[in-house]
């Protein structure tokens, strides 16, 4: 199938700014799905609220555009009630880790089979450039006019600590890697997290004088490296990309099937 066949053309043009990284994520995600060859009827995409979360409106799956921060909670209900469906949950960094932080760690802890994609642009795009928990110390935002004193989360470390059984990071620049890790994440049985560093030229770029979309993507190219690479040893400032964790541990819905078996025998 062509990528076009995964899109609801009726709902275009999309609402993203020119140069926004979210569209690149959409493209990478659809290519990953197309390469795996899952039927559109078997995919449920659940998103929250934010520029990133609008991704669900544009794709021809069963799509559930929910409340700010709550996508994983809705997704948990969908998955538990129809475990055979594939759940893909794209979220903004604020959506996933500020208002939705609690749902994020608990979904990871349960190891419920779904793919959480954190579209990390380090800012609240939808509401116009306020700092997010991922903005980081020293950044600038409309609510941090004197510079941000909030420290950031490391999404990878957080996910690992919370119990996610597949954890990866990539960027909007590294599209081929994005497709590859998304494929692995979607095929993984358990809670998978893919953090994708993506650019919001309109707010994060402008507020922090990082240039336009091209300069921001160049930043991803020049300041990241493969996980475990020598470059990282030489320059610890570099952000690692790739698959950090992949483990086979009991998945939540499969475990619940065992409970049903136990309950129906007795």
């Amino acid at each position: 199938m062509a990528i076009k066949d995964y899109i609801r053309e009726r709902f275009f043009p999309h609402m993203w700014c020119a140069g926004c990284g979210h569209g690149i994520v959409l493209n990478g995600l659809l290519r990953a799905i197309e390469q795996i060859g899952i039927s559109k009827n078997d995919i449920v995409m659940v998103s929250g609220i934010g520029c990133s979360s609008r991704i669900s409106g544009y794709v021809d799956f069963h799509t559930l555009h929910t409340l700010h921060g709550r996508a994983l909670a809705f997704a948990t209900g969908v998955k538990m009630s129809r475990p055979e469906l594939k759940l893909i949950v794209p979220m903004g960094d604020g959506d996933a880790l500020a208002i939705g932080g609690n749902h994020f760690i608990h979904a990871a802890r349960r190891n419920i089979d779904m793919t959480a994609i954190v579209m990390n642009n380090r800012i609240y795009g939808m509401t116009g450039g306020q700092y997010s928990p991922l903005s980081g110390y020293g950044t600038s935002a409309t609510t941090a006019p004197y510079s941000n004193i909030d420290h950031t989360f490391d999404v990878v470390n957080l996910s690992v600590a919370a119990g996610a059984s597949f954890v990866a990071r990539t960027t909007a620049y590294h599209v081929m890697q994005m497709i590859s890790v998304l494929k692995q994440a979607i095929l993984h049985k358990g809670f998978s997290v893919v953090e994708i560093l993506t650019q919001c030229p309109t707010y994060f770029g402008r507020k922090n004088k990082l240039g336009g979309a091209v300069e921001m993507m160049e930043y991803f190219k020049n300041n990241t490296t493969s996980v475990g690479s020598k470059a990282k040893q030489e320059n610890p400032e570099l952000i690692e990309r790739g698959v950090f964790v992949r483990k086979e541990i009991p998945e939540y819905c499969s475990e619940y099937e065992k409970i049903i078996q136990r309950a129906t025998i007795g």
Partner: protein
Amino acid sequence: MSQNIRFIQGNEVCVEAALYAGLNFFAGYPITPSTEIAEHLSLRLPQIKGRFIQMEDEIASVCAIIGASLTGHKVMTATSGPGFSLMQEGLGYAIMAEIPCVIINVQRGGPSTGLPTSVSQGDVGQALWGTHGDHAVIAMTASNHQDIFAMTVHAFNMAETYRTPVILLFDEVTGHMRERLVIPEPGEFPLVERLRTSVKEGVDYHPYLPREDGRLPMSDFGGKHRYNVTGLAHDMWGFPSNNPSVVQGLLRHLVDKINNNSHNITRYNEYEMEDARTVLISYGSSARSALHVVKNRRARGERIGLLELQTLWPFPFGLVRQKCADAKYIVVVEMNMGQILQPVRMAVDNPERVYLANRIDGVFITPTDIKNILRIIQGRGM
């Protein structure tokens, strides 16, 4: 025929009734005085291949049941005041996206953490206006085990019929008291299944285009139609829209589908109402004491009756007005500061005849409490 008789708590009645109605998925977070509902369902649901999950909080619980409803299941959550407050955004989502679900609030005293183990009916107003924006909601209650069963089944039926959340407002007394329940036979109560679309695969399905009667045929997530569900104002495709006529049409539909069907939604009981000059209006556990007063005083020849409301929202204005037409005294008996008193005053011709007999101190209102207040109202002194 041998009857299936049980001697159980109100919260267990609710569990039995939900299972009778076809409940298949429950998500919740423990909170007194509702916790027994979650405990029993964690045991019972997997026995019928249903699913139970204890979520990380009440926000997640209401979101999870909405997700599970979309895949075609009958769903429920149960909580009490603090948790019900947390559920308000999700409740509004279910109203806006028209997702059938049942939310039980076994009321405790509030506000805030309030009185976790004491009785109150303080969340009646919140059930109606707790979530933001113009909307209509269905909320019901009951005063005894047989009715808790019937109203719980009715709640599922109304949720599925009108594709809307239905709130069951029980309270600490009805939830925890034990009395006899005759479990109805299968088939004794009709069960409503949601309308499913007959649109064939490959043909355009408009998930948010209501039929003439206001009902909205649904397609299960995972089924043959793929569509968008959102809490944003949306068009017939379920796609976000801020077109004024689309928005106006949507809001009217959401409110009209409930308010115009109040006759189908409303349930009530009446006792000794034919010639009553004093009408007690009550609901939930306080109606038990009110009924006691009516029986007691009728025996002594007083023309007194009880109108027990079971559907609180949409408020049955016409019913209350008609039943109170000949009353000299209309006394609302409730355990709050007058949350049903207000709509009763709006409903009747002579609002100055409407009085309040209440308790707000976490102590169950007794027949003696009501009698004492009646004496004052009827001008007979203490």
